[in-house]
């Protein structure tokens, strides 16, 4: 789930029908959704978002060893092959999350 921008069919309040929406995430949290037809954008309140992001961070960190362990059991070779890149890429990923959140301010 490393994608930060995803697309999904959701109901748009303005179009009054299901339309393709673009969803922007920061880490595990949803930052905004934009309707692909009328461009209506739904955003989280920036204070809430920061608050939730900060609250979510310890949970992400605490569960990381368990998630890595699960991945190791599932696909050990893939994990070991990808781990160095993922480890060094983590600060960049966090910085991108920070930028996505900052955009909301």
């Amino acid at each position: 789930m490393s994608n930060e921008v995803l697309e999904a069919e959701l109901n748009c309040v303005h179009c009054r029908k299901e339309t393709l929406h673009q969803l922007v995430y920061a880490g595990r949290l949803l930052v905004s959704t934009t309707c692909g037809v009328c461009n209506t954008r739904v955003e989280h309140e920036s204070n809430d978002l920061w608050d939730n992001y900060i609250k979510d961070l310890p949970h992400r960190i605490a569960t990381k060893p368990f998630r890595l362990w699960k991945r190791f059991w599932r696909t050990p070779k893939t994990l070991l092959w990808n781990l160095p890149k993922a480890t060094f890429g983590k600060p960049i990923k966090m910085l991108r999350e920070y930028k996505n959140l900052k955009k909301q301010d």
Partner: protein
Amino acid sequence: MKSGMKAALIVLAAGAGSRFGHSTNKVWLPLSGRRIISRSLVNAANSFNKARIILVIHPDDDAMARTTLEREVRGIKVEIVHGGASRHESEYNALTYIAPQIESGEIEVVLIHDGARPLATPALFREIADAAHRHGGAIPTIAVDPREMDTVREDRVVRVQTPQGFLAPQLLLAYRKAAVDGFTGTDTAACMEKYFPEVKTKAVNADVSNVKITYPQDLAIAEHVLARRGYKD
């Protein structure tokens, strides 16, 4: 505590949605770190000691489903069935798949759940299964405030959620009759009501937080509910 009832849980996720090789069906969206459908499946599975779990998907989502189950729903046996053109058809496909076990008495109760409701708690699943076993059918409902409605009605109006549970042999028979008649119900209860009006469907008090992800803001609400629950359930 998990229920020991002989149940089958059918989780519907067959809504269309595939573009440029990736699914756009909302059930595959992440919700606080795990996909919506994974949360629905885990909550359903955590309700029972031994239950058949059937995931109904669109054929285009087959690879996505298998990867998601492998990554996020490990340790739980989930059987995949391809859905049809409508919700009713998808339900029928799943019921046909488990028909031999229903006919042999291995499955007593069937619960049908919308995959886009990731916050239905294991307690709600158990309550619905128990009520369905006792009364023949059970659905989670929330009373609608008359002030919210445009028309004045004498009778009580409720909002209906899922999971909806029914005794398995009657449910299978109802869907078989519907297939012969060409009847398409809006939900499981509608089909049962048509073919088994004598079955008393029990209205179980539902939780407002059992939201169906429909609008963008539902995702935000679901995130808040999960954060409040400490990311459990």
